């Protein structure tokens, strides 16, 4: 289970419902297809397995994960462990859940604040919006937050973060566009220490994982951070657009290599996207999913809990 930053014992009663609502489309996608495939079938034959593969692949779980799942089903069928198509739904559910649960680990905690959270990702995945929502979430939990505008590259990125700062009444440490992002981080960390804030969230410029110089810049930012606060950044969140396909794996791999990603945030899950790529990423890279973004409002960011995620998928 994910120990969210909500603090102890503050479960929102509406959480499951909101998650359900937010990812309704997701559900309509994968589960409807699975149900359609299974419905009315008397036995498990190759036609049914094809349909299942279709449902899994169009959910972006990737051809390899899909092949894995089908293989385990086939084996069970061969050994006469299952024969009723209706059991398949449960099997797939279990399989997906076990993949997601096996990578769960609690969020980093620090003995002495600030907790430094760095947010990275490719262009347009939703980093700045996620940070706005994260700030809102931490604030509602009664934590003090400081934002760091280290995306000094994209036009108006700093202004975008500042608007989120105003919305959530959070201060933003910034410099001019075009300045060295590591310098901004340095300033922000000094400020965070001086003001004794609980959490510092660092926005970084979107970059494609194939740009080596930009990935090296991330490494430098990490080094700078760790010089001011040992072990910082404590959490490095990779923001991933839920519509991302198999390239998401490569993104996760490269960002983990350079930035030391510790968890994923899946955004834009309110589309028809299925976010199946997170299953592939969890499976191959052993990274937990921390949050999911399900809308454009400040409170549209929910902590990710595999059992609830899967439960709402299969509800």
């Amino acid at each position, binding site marked *: 289970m994910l120990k969210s930053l909500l603090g102890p014992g503050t479960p929102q009663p509406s959480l499951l419902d909101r998650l359900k609502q937010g990812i309704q*489309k997701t559900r309509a996608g994968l589960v409807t297809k699975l149900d359609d495939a299974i419905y009315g079938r008397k036995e498990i034959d190759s036609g049914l397995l094809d349909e299942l593969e*279709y449902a899994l*692949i*169009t*959910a*972006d779980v*990737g*051809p390899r994960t899909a092949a894995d799942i089908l293989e385990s089903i086939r084996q069970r069928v061969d050994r006469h462990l299952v024969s009723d198509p209706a059991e398949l739904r449960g099997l797939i559910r279990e399989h997906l859940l076990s993949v997601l649960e096996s990578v769960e680990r609690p969020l980093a905690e620090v003995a002495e604040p600030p907790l430094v959270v760095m947010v990275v990702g*490719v*262009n*347009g*995945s*939703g980093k700045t919006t996620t940070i*706005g929502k994260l700030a809102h979430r931490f604030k509602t939990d009664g934590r003090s937050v400081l934002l760091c505008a280290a995306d000094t*590259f*994209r*036009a*108006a*990125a700093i*202004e*975008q973060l*500042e*608007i*989120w700062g105003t919305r959530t009444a959070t201060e933003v440490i910034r410099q001019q*566009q075009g300045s060295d992002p590591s310098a901004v981080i340095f300033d922000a960390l000094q400020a965070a220490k001086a003001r004794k804030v609980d959490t510092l969230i660092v926005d970084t410029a979107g970059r*494609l*994982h*194939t*740009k080596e110089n930009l990935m090296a810049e991330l490494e430098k930012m990490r080094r700078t951070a760790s010089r001011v606060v040992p072990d910082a950044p404590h959490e490095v969140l990779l923001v991933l*657009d839920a*519509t*991302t*396909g*198999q*390239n*998401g794996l*490569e*993104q996760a791999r490269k960002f983990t290599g350079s930035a030391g990603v510790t968890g994923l945030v899946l955004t*834009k899950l*309110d*589309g*028809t*996207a*299925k976010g*199946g*790529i997170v299953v592939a990423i969890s499976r191959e890279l052993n990274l937990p999913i921390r949050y999911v973004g399900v809308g*454009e409002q400040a409170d549209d960011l929910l902590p990710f809990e595999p059992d609830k995620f899967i439960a709402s998928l299969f509800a």
Partner: protein
Amino acid sequence: MFDSLSEKLQRVFKNIRGEGTLTAENMEAALKEIRMALLEADVHFKVVKQFIEGVRQKALGQEVLTSFSPAQQVIKIVRDELIAVLGTHPSRLRTANQPPTVVMIVGLQGSGKTTSTGKLAKFLSKSGHRPLVVSVDVYRPAARQQLAVIARDLQMPLYAGTPEETKPLDLARSARREAEQTGRDMVLIDTAGRLHIDDELMAELQELKENLNPTEILFVADAMTGQDAVKSADEFHKRLGITGVILTKMDGDARGGGALSIRHVTGQPLKFIGTGEKFDALEAFHPDRAANRILGMGDVISFIEKVEQNIDQKKAEEMQRKLIDNEFTLEDFRDQLKQLRKLGPLENLIGMMPKMGPLKELKDAKVDEKELTRIVAIIDSMTPRERDNHMLINGARRRRIAKGSGTTVQDVNNLLKQYAQARKMMKSFTGGGFLGKRMAKMKLPFFDNQN
């Protein structure tokens, strides 16, 4: 990362005894690999299915070409099919009869609309248009400011809007009026990102369309999009009737299989690809290059075709004879270089080579196009006698040649040295095997005919 499809196919056929012919059985194994490659490239499942069926039909009906191995034949069929689906020609932007031409740029959040708008404005102004840009994204924080900064950097006129104008339609209308008044022939409208299932926002786009009568509605799609690309493109197309697609973030390592899916479901052409963060990183879409990328392969067949198309058969035979008789003069050298240039940019040629086997060393080869131009200029500055017999070229002649070609004596020396080396190498080599074995090592690659 992924093995390239061509490598996989070669392995499939190697594992089958008597790989000489294409049979129904070994075809199945090949199709399986193709299917996996396409799925990994994020081509939509259903599109893959239809596609594979098409390839199967074509492959089995095909007469056996002895000059290609089965793997190569399959690759060729797949590639031809891909290109057929992607569209055979690069397509261009249309303009309205009565300017200003209105271009709407639409898409999901974060696909790269604003950046593409800036790039497109630059692209258009380079080709003689006078675009005006306007952002009607009244939702995302600082979105309009983002476009304003881009326009300022590009020194491109932008309609900034008045404080009263808070509706996208008002902004767009005023922008068009401003374009008419200031003699701008194109208006690029950057719209807010939206999910295709957001009914309200999709209706807003329809309203914009009805009132502005845009000539082009470009759908901006992220090359990294997965299986969902189909749905969003389809929905945008249904609601708006998009006229083209810009595929962004192609400078990453995404295979861009979404391109195939989008084209398949909308039938609309891919017009541009975004290939970098700089504002000139927008290119016209080339179906053949996209096909290669989706397949993740160096394209040996089109390379061979290209060589065959462009190398003059007679000249090639003549060259072969000269090479053997060691009559290879500087004049011939220049001809070879010129033929080579006809094949197109060398970087592309190298991109087409399979990065394996004897040509492995070419992988990181960098070719300086200017270098070739310089060499041709140097040879051009020689007298016919000098070209015929390079031994004539003494210090004074070298100075003259350098002056005539705008190079230095050192450049001339270098060229003569390379030429002498090439001649020497030819002496040691008789007949075939040249292209494969020597080319990688030579500083100045040129081709003989390999039939």
